[in-house]
């Protein structure tokens, strides 16, 4: 047996996410059996049951909303060669800024309050990534470590706010007071949880696709991401382009925080993210660093996420099974992305020639 390096044909790239899903379900079926449930039944609840009625379809979209945004943020960063592992922290920064604005909007109209919150959230996310981005560009300090570490800093910062100045004066819970009514995202469908944030997220995905595929800046960002040396040689300002990529990525992740505060919770809690930033990495990878692919991946993960609750309700398996499936999915995708560059050749035994 020999393993040779070669380039992956195009059709294989399209097949890989699907193959990863199939393999993931094959592997996780063992865990479902351990939980004394029927895997096929479990997958029905994971994948099909949420699509069987209007309420849970809407819930899938609600769950996908922050993932569309963090997935877009990570897709842009990775496509542009900036390894942003800090979407989680940028999301928290965005959520904090949105709350700060939202708390002051009691006399404002929604037409002012909502754009202002989006702007503040974007700016906060961009500011949160600015330090690692500048350290990368000016000092060549690896951004994987710095963006990752700032996630904990962000979480501790939110915690400090919620246990200090923003502690809810009435309940004394470590959560902020509720934001002004004018700052709450309008519902897209009355009496559902689907809010303006979903529309914002879809718009961001489409704009990102346009940026990367139809604009000079996008082409330059991708060139810097794919081959920085060649990009520099061609006269593209590599450092400035990287900085733009990073700030835009951080800003988009910040919007995810705005959307969760203004669309779902209406106040800041320290569990506001619950890992959406990290899941964004899965979304971007599964989507093949293509914004539209990331959109599909976010919807799929929203589906599994919704499904994990119905499977838990129906079959009594732990709700964490959904997390295990998503983690396995990431590992499978990464393994297949690596393997696609090689092919295994079976050669005859020695002496048989």
């Amino acid at each position, binding site marked *: 047996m020999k393993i040779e390096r070669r*380039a992956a044909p195009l059709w294989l790239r399209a097949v890989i996410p699907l193959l990863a899903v199939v393999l993931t379900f094959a592997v996780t079926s063992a865990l479902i059996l351990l939980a004394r449930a029927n895997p096929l039944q479990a997958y029905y609840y994971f994948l099909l049951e949420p699509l069987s009625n209007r309420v849970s379809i809407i819930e899938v979209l609600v769950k996908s909303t922050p993932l569309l945004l963090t997935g877009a943020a990570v897709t842009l960063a990775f496509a542009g060669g900036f390894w942003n592992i800090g979407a989680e922290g940028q999301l928290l920064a965005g959520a904090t800024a949105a709350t700060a604005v939202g708390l002051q909007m009691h006399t404002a109209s929604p037409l002012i309050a909502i754009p202002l919150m989006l702007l503040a959230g974007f700016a906060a996310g961009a500011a949160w990534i600015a330090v690692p981005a500048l350290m990368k560009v000016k000092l060549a300090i690896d951004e994987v470590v710095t963006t990752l570490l700032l996630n904990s800093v962000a979480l501790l910062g939110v915690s400090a706010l919620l246990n200090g100045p923003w502690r809810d004066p009435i309940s004394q819970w470590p959560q902020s007071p509720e934001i002004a009514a004018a700052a709450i995202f309008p519902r897209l469908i009355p009496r559902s949880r689907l809010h303006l944030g979903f529309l914002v997220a879809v718009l961001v995905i489409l704009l990102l696709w346009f940026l990367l595929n*139809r*604009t*000079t*800046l*996008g*082409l*330059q960002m*991708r*060139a810097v991401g*794919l*081959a920085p*040396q*060649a*990009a*520099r*040689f*061609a*006269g*593209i*300002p590599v450092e400035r382009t990287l900085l733009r990529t990073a700030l835009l990525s951080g800003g988009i992740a910040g919007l995810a925080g705005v959307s969760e505060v203004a669309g779902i919770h209406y106040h800041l809690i320290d569990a506001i993210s619950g890992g959406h930033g990290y899941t964004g990495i899965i979304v971007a990878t599964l989507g093949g660093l293509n914004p539209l692919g990331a959109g599909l991946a976010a919807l799929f993960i929203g589906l599994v996420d919704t499904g994990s609750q119905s499977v838990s309700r129906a079959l009594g398996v732990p709700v964490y099974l959904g997390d295990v499936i998503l983690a396995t999915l990431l590992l499978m995708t990464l393994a297949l992305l690596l393997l696609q560059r090689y092919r295994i050749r079976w*050669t005859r035994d*020695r*002496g048989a*020639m």
Partner: protein
Amino acid sequence: MQPPASPAVQMRSITKRFGALIANDAADFTLRRGQIHALLGENGAGKTTLMRVLYGFYRPDTGSITVNGQPASFSAPRDAITQGIGMVTQHFALALPLTVTENVVLGAERGLPLDLAAAQRRVQAAAQSFGIDIDPAARVRDLSIGQRQRVEILKALYRKATVLILDEPTAVLLPQEADELFRALRRLQNQGLAVVFISHKLHEVMAITDQVTVMRNGRTVNTVDTAHTTQAELARLMVGRSLTPPPARPAPPADQPVALRLDQVSAQDNKGLPALKALSLAVHVGEIVGLAGVSGNGQVELAEVLSGTRRVTAGRVLVEDTDITNADPRRVMQAGVGRIPEDRHASVVGEMTVAQNMALEHLGEFSPRGLLDKAHITRHAEQLITTYQIKARPDDRIRTLSGGNMQKVILARVLERAPRVLVVAQPTRGLDVGAGEYVHGKLLEQRARGAAVLLISEDLEEILALADRIAVIYEGEIRAVLPRAEADSQRLGLLMSGVRA
């Protein structure tokens, strides 16, 4: 039991395919004991593949191999080594922090413990008996390239090789080091060693070998005795047609203005060591200046300085009256400099299309208000593909192109802008003869148009064929600038090795 005349190696009808590519097509090769046998051919003719089959690195699709008259089948180099076959490639497989002795015995000694003192004595004895001059206690990282090559040869001999395959051994050597290698090979030959000498350099083949097997397009076209052939005949066999001598051309007028001037330029390499030392050079309008030198004497850094990708620590760079000292690539291009870099793959974005790469250096012209005009980018690419006879479509990812076609894309991208100064590094490295001639033709066209061309090349034949004047670089300094009429490979070789003229 074997008849004494059985050859050391006989390969019959070897075919090796890589996907659609046929690297070896029913190739035959016979190596007699005690002979130095050249395997001659252009890049891509299949020489290295055939020898990798012999060394057990590849398994042939069809064909048979006998070693000393016995059928042999190797599934890994380890099998070939036990049959007495050794191979020294262009990329040495040496552990730099270890000593010569440790490198030689690594993998050759069985069992524990390893008695290094005894091993050193054995390596010393082996080196002496083979006439290889090397200090067994030296660390490999402190050795020159020529000495490292000797360690590789000693490694093979220590494993009792009776057949030694050398893959373009002189490519990395100074002319003087090459002479030393040839003397060592003669001595080894007298001790009965058979040597396969892979090369595409005719004069070396004539100088050192007893027999020559010429390969073309994966086939072995002919095997001739070196004594009964000429360089011209070998060249004809190699390319399948006679090499045309460079066309006579008028010398450029004497009083042309200077287009590119380097004035006392100093720069550092990636390790922060001085790579260019107060280097001065001028290239006039309508002339080609060839920069000759052994690899690693500052050529890479000089090309980068002129491309806008390396800063100078002192001195000035002028294009006509424009100062481009430490300018970024964009300003360097705006000043009228066209750049054909040494590392083709590092100057294009492999995952992007031919059309995108052709537009990348001047995106502003293809994107009014920041939006990409895809139709314009594609039209532009189609036009260049036609003009420069590139075998590619605008939408092909550029990394899928052959070396020759990729080079044509880079040429097209640069030449369409009619640069006043052209900085060209190793323009035909790795290209086949046809593509190489095309590139040379284009460079001469640029000269005729009035461009000032700086041709940086490690291929002396290329420099002698194209340059009007030849500058020799050694340790970051220009040692001499000669008119072509006064330059021959002997004199250049001495200058390139640091001997002052």
